[in-house]
């Protein structure tokens, strides 16, 4: 078994949270977890199709970063094929996400996208990009747009920050390095969040990467690179808040490498035979939801019954999303060509 990388033990930037913030983070993570569990169930029951990549285990990254952004203004999120939970954290209603997975016209991409192509302009979700790394240039261009509006169009209100999520596998692709160069060169308000879950399908990160510490590649391009325990939502939130503040202040991009783990295979089609049992056990003990719950309880911010009540309420919310998706109509066949061109 490969030596486990030591997680950064004493993060200096760990967020301190109020009761309200703690409950918000907990609820967001539970929504991600229960939504994905329901997806697995629906996939095996033949209600959704294609490749479905679940996010279980990585919730602290989505919640920690996206819930530190402004929801009601001009911040943007770009995701990958593993995008359900990023969409939920960004505020896309669970009903719309579930409907999209069912291919229904009420889905956030009108049933044209599917699991790997969730988009929502109203929630500034730039999309699930299904080819590894291809979302990085797009997100970088959106960050450029924010700067352009501020400086070339004299719009001081254009202070948006764009967050671009991708995995350890993507960080070996040229688009990553090309965009780090341009983002630093032009001081773009973008944050590259690498969810290093150790495995690119069956390729272990160490077998694919000459310098496995991805955060070290930030400084090589002239921007900060931060390593964070991706199973600790407060640590993720802390480094995210710092990076967002820097980006918003015009101080440029940041690389955040969140060390995390997916509790399921690469996709629901993956037999997941390569990852060692011992490795899975080590990481399952670091469950980010349990960890936040323990913290909130230990600090006396919440009571156990309150968390249980949230779990129950979110489960109902997810069940409602399934019912909504089941009851929703299929796209109209006469609209097969709709959305090819802007005028459609």
């Amino acid at each position, binding site marked *: 078994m490969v030596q486990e990388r030591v997680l950064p033990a004493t993060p200096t930037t760990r967020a301190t949270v109020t009761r309200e913030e703690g409950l918000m983070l907990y609820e967001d993570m539970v929504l991600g977890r229960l939504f994905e569990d329901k997806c697995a169930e629906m996939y095996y029951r033949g209600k959704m199709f294609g490749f479905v990549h679940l996010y279980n285990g990585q919730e602290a990254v989505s919640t920690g970063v996206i819930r530190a952004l402004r929801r009601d203004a001009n911040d943007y999120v770009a995701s990958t094929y593993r995008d359900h939970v990023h969409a939920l954290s960004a505020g896309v209603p669970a009903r719309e996400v579930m409907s999209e997975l069912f291919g229904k016209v009420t889905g956030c991409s009108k049933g044209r996208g599917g699991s790997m192509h969730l988009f929502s302009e109203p929630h500034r979700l730039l999309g699930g990009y299904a080819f590894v790394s*291809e979302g990085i240039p797009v997100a970088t*261009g959106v960050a450029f747009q924010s700067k352009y509006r501020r400086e*070339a169009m004299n719009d001081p209100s254009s202070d948006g920050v764009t967050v671009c999520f991708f995995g350890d596998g993507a960080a070996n692709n040229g688009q990553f390095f090309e965009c780090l160069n341009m983002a630093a060169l032009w001081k773009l308000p973008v944050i590259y969040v690498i969810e290093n879950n150790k495995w690119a399908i069956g390729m272990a990160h160490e077998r694919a990467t000459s310098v496995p510490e991805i955060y070290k590649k930030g400084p090589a391009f002239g921007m900060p690179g931060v390593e964070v325990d991706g199973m600790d939502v407060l640590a993720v939130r802390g480094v995210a808040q710092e990076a967002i503040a820097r980006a918003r202040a015009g101080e440029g991009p940041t690389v955040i490498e969140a060390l995390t783990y997916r509790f399921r295979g690469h996709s629901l089609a993956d037999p997941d035979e390569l990852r060692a049992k011992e490795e899975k056990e080590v990481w399952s003990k670091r469950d980010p939801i349990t960890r936040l719950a323990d913290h909130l309880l230990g600090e006396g911010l919440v009571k156990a019954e309150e968390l249980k009540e949230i779990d129950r309420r979110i489960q109902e919310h997810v069940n409602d999303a399934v019912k909504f998706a089941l009851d929703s109509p299929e796209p109209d066949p006469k609209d097969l060509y*709709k959305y*090819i061109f*802007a005028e459609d």
Partner: protein
Amino acid sequence: MAETIFFNALREATDEEMARDPRVLVMGEDVGHYGGSYKVTKDLYKKYGDLRLLDTPIAENSFTGMAVGAAMTGLRPIVEGMNMGFLLLAFNQISNNAGMLRYTSGGNFTIPMVIRGPGGVGRQLGAEHSQRLEAYFQAVPGLKIVACSTPYNAKGLLKSAIRDNNPVLFFEHVLLYNLKEDLPDEEYLLPLDKAEMVRSGEDITILTYSRMRHHVMQAVKTLEKEGIDPEVIDLISLKPLDMATIAASVRKTHRVLIVEECMKTGGIAAELTAQIIEQCFDDLDAPPVRLSSQDIPTPYNGILENLTIVQPAQIVEATKKLLDNRI
């Protein structure tokens, strides 16, 4: 009227649209301080600044993807391919994201961007710099493909492409940048989806685009002397094809010759032939004939290069052969 050289017609179009709309910007290799490899953006950075004439590093796939992101969020970027061939390196962003993303997103986002630059076979530039990419891109859903051929249509079409809300692949030709023509003093725009009637005639329809239009017109001079009256149509829009104009011409002449610079296999003429047969079969007196480049990488040697692309003499010969079997 003012005599305008081709590259300046494109520059005027860019300048006018940038002055009109602050969301319009140009990005690519050497578009700013250097002025563009064919001077289409010469000195515009002095007027509009470095952000609106964004000199990018040599990273085609990434800066094209950036343009997609900028377009999704409301800007109107023009990406210059220093040589359109380099955009093979950006094929993924052009296909998956510029072309398909609006559909895949269920209409959440639109991609108003122009990707323009010199394509075609130059003079002994070698295989990589002498490509004919229009054929490669024609299968990508969501893209409009336009090829300009004169200073007049270059200016009017580029302005329309910049104002279009869809991704437009805009082909110029490396050997046409020095053509001169008198252009109107007042502003004009040309439709992106309409073919241009270059010469009205009765005997045969010759369909062509880009630089081959000029080879065709050289051939036409010879054909006229021999009493042949060809109709010449410049396709302008390579996708979608203006089948209304084309079909009307076929109904009149009943014979079709297609002259193109791209390769024969899977080329623009291949698609055009298929559509003509599907839609105009009963109007044809003879099978459509294609004159295309040879299916080889463009050779460096000048003699071989000339053999690779269609020459005016071949157009004369093919036209006469098509007319020889007139009933």
